């Protein structure tokens, strides 16, 4: 809709950009952004405006303000990965996905906050501090929350965004941008999408280029897309997908961007409900929402079947081994020699490396490096790494079997519960939390499958609950079509934020979530 507005001249790109920048300032307490690229954004907006004036916009994304997670390289704009190791690091090149968005005329507002090096499920473990879920300040949440004492204010009760792409999710959720890039290795786009009430798409591995995405686990990472509605996700996907010669893991087949049909008849659809996703710790609320969703499909005429993915319970352990091993390898380049933080220690090269890495990385990163190196030792390699790869194959095969049996799309919860208060969340360490929270999202990364979170309902506490659809490899069109139908059925409410109301503009006034398509 905003795209149409831009085209019709109802609003100009510079106005839009300024609105967003000003909203970012007034929602600073969310800590969603690490770097705000005000100058360059305005320049981009001006250029876009020129194009609209001449009637020559580059496409639907021209002039649309976007944000990018701070683990994507952006030329000339600091890229930190929320780590001391890369504080002040200005990359000389743009990640392919960033370049593609810029080439389409999108306006890059800034880099969003995350868990350090994307390791975490809360967006609480970066050096710039935790990200706050905008819903913490929504009327919906405040109405439902009972203050324990009158001295307790909104400051202490806020809930997390989930992670690790929490900044991007919060940015989209709080209307400071219309789309954002995240990354997804074990659920890092879908998890915060669920907690922040936005659409979070994890594309099939190999569909979108990872060139310029600072890797966590090369064999599982994908750039993730966060938007306010499914149609928008399809538009962004269309501009990003396709072979990149700079990334040898992208498929060669040509990709055709698609528009999503408005599905009315779901009778030919087969929805699978994997029983193993009724995981320990799954809240009663989420279980109920999941059930209701299944009924929704059934009542509309779709075939809804229970299926089994028997190796699901092994995926967390398997993921832990493979993830830490790749982390240990990927982090080896951070030695302070070529770029990034370098310690003052001058005794020897080795001591400089050690000091640099101790100073530059937080405990979470260092912990994973140590574990990963342990698993990669010659005497352990077969037992752990190779074993985990074999288990990974089994997990992927579970999905293949289920899809082969006629199921089109799987329906599962995205998270175990709604967003936890920060104070509760930090009671357990990162590793524990990750193990708990990744359980529903991470198998899709193991198998390389596309998956999407669709905001479904509000919890009793007034916080978003989302459900996940997992599709067949490279069948994003089918996946998103189903997701769009579901989105239409559930009519998830718009977040009611004071700050947004103050920045009243007809662009933001909708009954449905604001979108740009």
């Amino acid at each position, binding site marked *: 809709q905003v795209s149409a507005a831009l085209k019709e001249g109802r609003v100009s790109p510079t106005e839009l950009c300024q609105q967003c920048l000003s909203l970012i300032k007034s929602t600073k307490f969310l800590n969603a952004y690490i770097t705000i690229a005000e100058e360059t954004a305005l320049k981009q907006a001006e250029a876009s405006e020129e194009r609209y004036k001449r009637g020559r916009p580059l496409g639907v994304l021209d002039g649309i303000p976007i944000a990018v997670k701070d683990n994507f390289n952006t030329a000339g704009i600091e890229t930190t990965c929320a780590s001391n190791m890369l504080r002040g690091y200005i990359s000389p090149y743009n990640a392919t996905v960033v370049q593609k968005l810029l080439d389409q005329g999108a306006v890059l507002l800034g880099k969003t906050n995350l868990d350090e090096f994307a390791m975490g499920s809360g967006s609480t473990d970066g050096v710039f501090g935790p990200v706050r879920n905008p819903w913490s300040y929504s009327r919906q949440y405040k109405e439902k929350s009972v203050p324990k004492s009158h001295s307790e204010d909104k400051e202490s009760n806020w809930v997390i965004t989930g992670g690790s792409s929490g900044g991007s999710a919060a940015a989209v959720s709080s209307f400071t941008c219309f789309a954002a890039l995240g990354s997804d290795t074990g659920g890092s786009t879908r998890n915060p999408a669920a907690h922040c009430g936005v659409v979070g798409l994890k594309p099939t591995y190999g569909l979108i280029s*990872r060139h310029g995405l600072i890797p966590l686990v090369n064999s599982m990472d994908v750039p993730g897309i966060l938007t306010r509605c499914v149609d928008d996700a399809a538009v962004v996907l269309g501009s990003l997908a396709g072979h990149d010669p700079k990334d*040898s893991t992208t498929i060669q087949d040509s990709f055709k961007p698609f528009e999503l049909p408005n599905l009315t008849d779901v009778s030919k659809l087969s929805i699978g409900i994997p029983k193993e996703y009724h995981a320990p710790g799954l809240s009663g609320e989420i279980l109920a929402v999941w059930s209701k969703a299944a009924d929704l499909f059934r009542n509309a005429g779709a075939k809804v079947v229970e299926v089994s993915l028997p190796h699901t319970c092994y995926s967390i352990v398997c993921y832990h081994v493979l993830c830490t091993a790749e982390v240990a390898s990927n982090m080896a380049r951070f030695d302070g020699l070529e770029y990034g933080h370098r310690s003052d220690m001058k005794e020897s090269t080795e001591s400089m490396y050690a000091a640099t890495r101790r100073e530059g990385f937080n405990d979470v990163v260092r912990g994973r490096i140590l574990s990963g190196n342990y698993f990669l030792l010659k005497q352990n390699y077969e037992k752990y790494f190779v074993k985990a790869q074999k288990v990974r194959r089994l997990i992927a095969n579970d999905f293949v079997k289920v899809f082969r049996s006629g199921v089109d799309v799987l329906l599962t919860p995205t998270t175990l519960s709604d967003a936890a208060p920060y104070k509760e969340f930090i009671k357990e360490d990162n590793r524990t939390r990750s193990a708990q929270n990744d359980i529903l999202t991470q198998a899709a990364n193991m198998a390389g499958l596309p998956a999407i979170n669709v905001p479904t309902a509000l919890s009793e506490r007034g916080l978003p609950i989302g459900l996940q659809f997992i599709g067949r490899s490279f069948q994003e069109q089918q996946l998103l079509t189903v997701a769009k139908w579901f989105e239409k059925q559930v009519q998830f409410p718009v977040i009611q934020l004071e700050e947004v109301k103050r920045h009243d503009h007809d662009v933001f006034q909708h009954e449905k979530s604001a979108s740009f398509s």
Partner: protein
Amino acid sequence: LAPWVPVVGLEIHAQISSNSKLFSGSQVQFAAPPNSLVSFFDASLPGTLPVLNRRCVEAAVMTGLALNCSINKKSLFDRKHYFYADLPAGYQITQQRVPIAVNGSLSYSLCIDNKMSQMVTKTVRIKQIQLEQDSGKSLHDDTRSQTLVDLNRAGVGLMEVVMEPDMCCGEEAAAAVRELQLILQTLGSSQAVMAEGQLRVDANVSVHHPGEPYGVRTEVKNINSIRFLAKAVDYEIQRQIEELENGGTILNETRAFDSKLGCTVPMRDKEGKQDYRFMPEPNLPPLILYDAKSLPANMNHQQVINIDWIHERLPDLPSVKREKLVEQYGILPEHSFALLNEDGLAEFYENVVKQTRMKPKRVIGWVLNDLLSYLKQHSLTVKESPVSSALLADLLNLLEKKEISSTAAKQVLAELWKGEGKTPLEIVKEQKLQLLQDEKELEQICQAVIDRQENEVIMMVLG
């Protein structure tokens, strides 16, 4: 004293001759200003990914075929981790699990008894050839307590050729490496110039008594020429024998060859055994090669490598060239070795043969003895020879027509060598070296001599 059996294996790194590096587009060039040929990927900037260079794969396939290897239609890339200043990513991309070529052989020849007259052919098995990245260079500046790092070489493509321990002495090792060098240069897959670091050889040496298991081996590094290779290997064999005969033991260590002292010394840098924590390289899919049979019908020619296509286009290898020379010109095998051993010499020889009526079997002596020794004396390459093949052919024609004697010919050659632009005929005339063909004239001269020296003639006739 029980005899000792020395066992020598080699690990050879050959820099691939290509325009750009193995996984990135930066240029490959010797002696460029420091850090001027470094791409983002070479510098290990976060987020960069490797992209395989087709030319490097072709070079490895050519080399594998030339060495009679099986080319693996599917090979894999791995990461080998260790921390060092010249390794920006903290790991090297190599092929540890499944390399591109395996199970080949290399035949080489040696002269026995130091005579060029008897050559014997030996074979060494090639265990494998793998593609891997070269590291950068680091220079230690002890006076300022700093290390200077130049990443120009980081990421250049290497072929590691592993030769099984089938050799027994320095001479064999040297001959094998020399033959490999010639093969690589003929293929063009590597320029293989040791002095420029394009060919690096590490030797694995051990000794044992016949019938007993192999002894502990040491690795010898820092060998900068083929001559030093032979010396280093022989020294190490001797050192091990002496050590063992004196009741000592051999440590499984890495030693450096000191060319000034002519001995091997333990290397201080290498501490203990490193665990390289090998891991598959996740950013590179398996390397798939095709042959005529397996090539899919509508595959883009740009995207695939056809092993058979490469095989068909391999140039004549040195061994084949030598056979042809022997057959075509009737020269001895050792002559063909000498011809191929010097860059451009075989071509020179063939050009001379074409331009002269002298039999090739006679020409060879002139080329190998006279010309080559001149070149060696003055440290010139064949290309730099002041005597061209045409000039030499002219000279040999005079000799063939018996217009001069062979002693005179050598004199003319010495004069030609000065490179003053004179033709052989001009020199002959200048120095009055022509043989007299006229019998009558000869008779007159002889008679004149006899007349002048009457007494001596009588003495001679009497006995």
